[in-house]
């Protein structure tokens, strides 16, 4: 197991105690692509901040490669390197004069050698599809919004994380920008073998990419399974006021009207084939 959460409960204590997470048990293995869904305030953000030690749970343990991440506070930096976290609107955290310097911030904090830092910056910029020579000396603030986001993601990739967690990475982008970003995630997962946790409100994104879907509600994990399994729980998801991917939603509705089609389909073309074959049977 790469990461394990054991009996986690977390309570925010600041003003009036609010329970953010309740009895969470979760194991994540290498190579998974997890889609994490749930309402605002369901505990998703708290959960992912636990995973890289930004928040310490009120009770329970977080294991990374079987090591309790809070057992030695000095090693937290190392954990944060292995569990990369990309916050919402990550471009808002850019601060350096040049793109090179900004991407190098993480590796520098790790105390790496100059040569290694340079290699990592180059590699991560190319990963996110920005030409190193062309972009390295430019100011990050003169880029378009979509490009800034790529630089920010490169800044986390430069830590060489084994797990990459992204909180709504496509928020605010136009359809093209969204699609490009999803392609990047697919590439990172399939070709670079990074384990990914994607928080998103867009069920289409989750259905297309994830190998496993986790649904949270009021601080608990309420559903956990393959996309086909989770999205077949139509009623449960509606109760939680969550959407289904549009294709799945259409198929479910057809089913309830007596056209018995399979519902574990997320792709438009596949759905078309299924509908046509079932209608012809009729």
């Amino acid at each position, binding site marked *: 197991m790469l990461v394990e959460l054991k009996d986690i409960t977390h309570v925010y204590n600041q003003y009036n105690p609010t329970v953010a997470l309740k009895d969470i048990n979760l194991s994540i293995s290498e190579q998974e692509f997890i889609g994490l869904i749930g309402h605002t305030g369901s505990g998703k953000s708290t959960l992912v901040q636990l995973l890289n030690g930004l928040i310490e749970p009120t009770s329970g343990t977080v294991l990374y490669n079987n090591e309790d991440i809070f057992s030695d506070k000095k090693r937290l930096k190392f954990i944060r390197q292995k569990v990369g976290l990309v916050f919402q609107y990550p471009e808002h955290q850019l601060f350096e*004069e040049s793109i090179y310097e900004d991407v190098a911030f993480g590796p520098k904090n790790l105390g790496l050698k100059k040569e290694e830092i340079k290699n990592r910056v180059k590699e991560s910029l190319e990963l996110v599809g920005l030409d190193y020579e062309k972009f390295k000396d430019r*100011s990050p*603030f*003169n880029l378009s919004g979509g490009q800034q986001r790529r630089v920010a993601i490169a800044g986390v990739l430069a830590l060489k994380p084994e797990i990459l967690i992204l909180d709504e990475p496509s928020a605010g982008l136009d359809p093209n920008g969204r699609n490009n970003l999803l392609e990047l995630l697919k590439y990172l997962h399939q070709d670079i073998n990074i384990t990914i946790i994607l928080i998103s409100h867009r069920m289409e994104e989750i259905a297309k990419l994830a190998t496993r879907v986790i649904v949270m509600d009021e601080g608990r994990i309420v559903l956990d399974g393959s996309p086909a399994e989770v999205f077949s729980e139509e009623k449960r998801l509606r109760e939680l006021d969550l959407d289904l991917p549009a294709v799945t939603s259409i198929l479910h509705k057809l089913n309830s009207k007596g056209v018995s089609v399979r519902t574990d389909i997320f792709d438009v073309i596949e759905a078309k084939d299924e509908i046509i074959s079932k209608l012809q049977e009729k």
Partner: protein
Amino acid sequence: MQGKNMISTFNEYDYSSNPARLIAMQALMVAFVSAATFIAVPGPSSSYFNLGEIAIYILALTFGGKAGGVAGAFGSAITDILLGYSIWAPFTFVIKGLEGYVVGRIAGGETDLKKVIIAILIGGHIMIVGYGITKGFLISWAAVLPEIIIDYGQMSIGAVVAIPISRQLIKHFKSK
């Protein structure tokens, strides 16, 4: 494009031509100083030092006296009130306002390090002497010494952090 607007906000426009832009910009700079003052970093002894000075110097050095003065005066005084030190607010208003104005007046938009340091030394001492006198009269001269030590810390740390940041910002806005 954005940067251009920002510089011009404080230099070219006057109140009558574009009040919304000027007010929004100054208000957010005030909020920036105030938010920075709220961020307290535990320091030596039981005192703490806050980032307010840094924020004032950044604004003054980047945008000049007017911006630094307004942000210093209002930002710090509001924070005094919000934190419950309202008794200091009027003095803070004058002292920090003057500090921001003087630093910005001497070295606003400057990248010449010597000038910048001189500006902060003068501005910083206005703050140090100002608070010294205030506390001396208001409370007692006995309270002045620890105050002065903290204030010197504020000034030096303010300079160390604000100078590189403001140089970067000036360069950024000039390049646009």
